């Protein structure tokens, strides 16, 4: 009797588990005439989640309009996976989307390591188009680019060139470079310095400092830069380090002592939480502002976005929005749901965006976006610090040429 009881108590859960597993495996993936499926791998946890959520909101907003009309008589549906900023999770989740969900297009991610891993190990090998929408490494569509990977965001080469060219018109001579000690920081620094020193050979770099990404206390770094007293400073930080550096600049009054350029210093996601604590007079570059360019397409997009989510779109939302339109337009142009024809259609495709007409460059699969250079200044209208005196650098000015790309890829 006792033995019977024991037997039951082990086998019941085991049988239950086996049954559950079988049900899971045999669950039909999708049958019959199906919609167009987009698989999104991105980071929805941790400090990067703010960007992942924003991009997803922009994407969802665009799909609402797109699906009203439909694409090739179908709807576009999507499913998301949270990679938690981990490369191994991004890989296994992307594989799950491709092998189990059978998605037509992969989209993601903010982590450039993950973007490159998925691009090389999954998109290229399994021949699935992969659109990178936030991650800014220039290598994704540069030296590591290939037929199956696209980018709908700006990258470090564009940002660095924009900053470098802007600074080359200024009289400063002695520069200090500092930033997050990872690929993004160094890539921006290299691109900026390369362009700056080419355009203005008299500049000298008097020192560099690099901190670990996310370093909470940046005061010692700023103190040592102030001690060295350069003519101007280039900070190469991203994500949450942006808030930390802006706070440290404000606390030490650094912006009043020397000119500073930081890519994304004018990012609303950074400036808004800081409120009145955001330093003024910092030069920054961005590829999108909800208040600039002040054209009807942008106003419409911003109004719709505000109505839906209660806050204005950031640059990731803009990328998400144009990604959805690129996917829809490319399938319409391809005339059928086929991955190879989708890629052919997407190459060189021109669409209208909130920031005006944009083009997906055929040679490197990088979307051509302008860069907006501005300086942080308090805006009584928006009640936060925004970018002012904006100068637009056209995409053709800030992007590496197609011949540079071909050379980088070693073809």
């Amino acid at each position, binding site marked *: 009797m006792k033995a019977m009881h024991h037997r039951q108590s082990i086998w019941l859960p085991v049988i239950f588990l086996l049954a559950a597993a079988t049900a899971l495996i045999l669950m039909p993936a999708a049958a019959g005439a199906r919609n167009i499926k987009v698989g999104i791998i991105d980071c929805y946890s941790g400090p990067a989640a703010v960007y992942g959520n924003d991009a997803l909101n922009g994407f969802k907003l665009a799909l609402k309009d797109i699906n009203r009309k439909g694409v090739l008589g179908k709807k576009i549906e999507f499913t998301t996976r949270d990679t938690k900023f981990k490369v191994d999770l991004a890989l296994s989740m992307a594989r799950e989307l491709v092998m189990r969900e059978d998605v037509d297009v992969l989209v993601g991610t903010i982590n450039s390591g993950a973007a490159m891993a998925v691009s090389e190990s999954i998109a290229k090998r399994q021949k699935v188009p992969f659109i990178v929408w936030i991650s800014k490494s220039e290598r994704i569509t540069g030296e590591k680019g290939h037929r199956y990977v696209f980018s709908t965001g700006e990258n470090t080469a564009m940002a660095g060139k924009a900053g470098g060219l802007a600074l080359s018109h200024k009289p400063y001579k002695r520069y200090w470079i500092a930033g997050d000690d990872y690929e993004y920081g160094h890539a921006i620094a290299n691109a900026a310095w390369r362009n700056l020193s080419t355009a203005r050979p008299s500049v000298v770099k008097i*020192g560099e400092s690099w901190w670990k990404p996310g370093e*909470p206390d940046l005061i010692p770094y700023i103190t040592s830069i102030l001690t060295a007293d350069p003519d101007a400073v280039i900070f190469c930080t991203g994500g949450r380090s942006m808030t930390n550096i802006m706070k440290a600049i404000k*606390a030490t009054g650094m912006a009043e002592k020397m000119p500073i350029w930081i890519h994304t210093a004018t990012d609303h996601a950074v400036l808004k939480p800081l409120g009145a604590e955001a330093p003024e007079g910092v030069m920054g570059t961005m590829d999108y502002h909800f208040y600039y360019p002040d054209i009807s397409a942008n106003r419409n997009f911003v109004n719709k976005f505000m109505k839906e989510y209660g806050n204005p779109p950031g640059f990731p939302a803009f990328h998400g929005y144009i990604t959805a339109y690129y996917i829809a337009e490319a399938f319409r142009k391809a005339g059928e749901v086929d991955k190879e024809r989708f890629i052919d259609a997407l190459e060189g495709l021109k669409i209208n965006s909130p920031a005006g007409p944009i083009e997906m460059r055929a040679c490197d699969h990088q979307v051509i976006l302008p860069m907006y250079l501005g300086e942080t200044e308090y805006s009584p209208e928006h009640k936060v610090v925004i970018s002012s005196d904006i100068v637009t650098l056209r995409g053709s000015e800030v992007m590496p040429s197609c011949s540079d790309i071909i050379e980088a890829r070693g073809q």
Partner: protein
Amino acid sequence: MEWSETYTAAALGSHLLVGLSRAMILFIVTSGLSFVLGVLRVPNVAHGSLYMIGAFAAFSIVNVLGGGAPAFWAALLLAPLIVAAVSLVAERALFCHLYEREHLMLLLFTFALMLILGDLVKMVWGADYRSIMAPEFLRGSVPVFGSPFPKYNLFLLVVGPVVAVGLWLFSSRTRIGKIARAAAVDREMVGAVGINVSWVFAFAFVLGCFLAGLGGALVAPTVSVTLGMDHDIIIEAFLIVTIGGLGNMWGAMVGSLIFGVTQSFGVLFWPQFAIVFPYVAVVIVLTLRPKGLLKSVW
């Protein structure tokens, strides 16, 4: 550039102060961790999560009360209390049933707690970056040794020693503090003289977590309050209590000072290697003193 030009006495002095102020935050967080390690013998991996909750709670309190100095002081007081309440619930509902278990099982429990608290913070506060402002009189900077030194960091330089002295008075002068210290050395003995050890442990755990929350609330005005703060601090905190001597509060102070000051001077002398300073410090200390710098209860 000449050495003497960059590394003047003034520059060294201001870097020392910057390092010390960072050490104060580290000390407040790690003294709590060390206390739990000493009394309960539990490596509390969730300590970083409680620090993060402290920062987020401070943000909410300042927001609800509409900013200004009173809101800031209220946040400094209430945020750690909220954290203490969370930890009390976790301790009484779950943790207290596990004290007889293997140490590594307790580690597993605190790891599970870290996973849960991390997601709960995301559910409650969302993923946006948050930021709170220090009150008016602590904003901006004052010149110290010729460099601008943030007033808030000066404030930290005052708070740190106050907390240290308070903790010392508490553990050497109050009855419950003495019992906790005795329980750290010999828990059977404390039980044998008729003291409810379970409540002593609960108290120690909650106090440790209160300090984590206080650290989070204090650091909030200087950084972006965001998810992932838990991961950022936890390894550093463990390394500090290890080199100081596990369970020794003054060890946490020494370890924090070493970390804060080496980081600050390291930035001045070898900025390109900043990422490895804490690890190198630990390797050197533990190679020379395998049980940490000060006497450990482990």
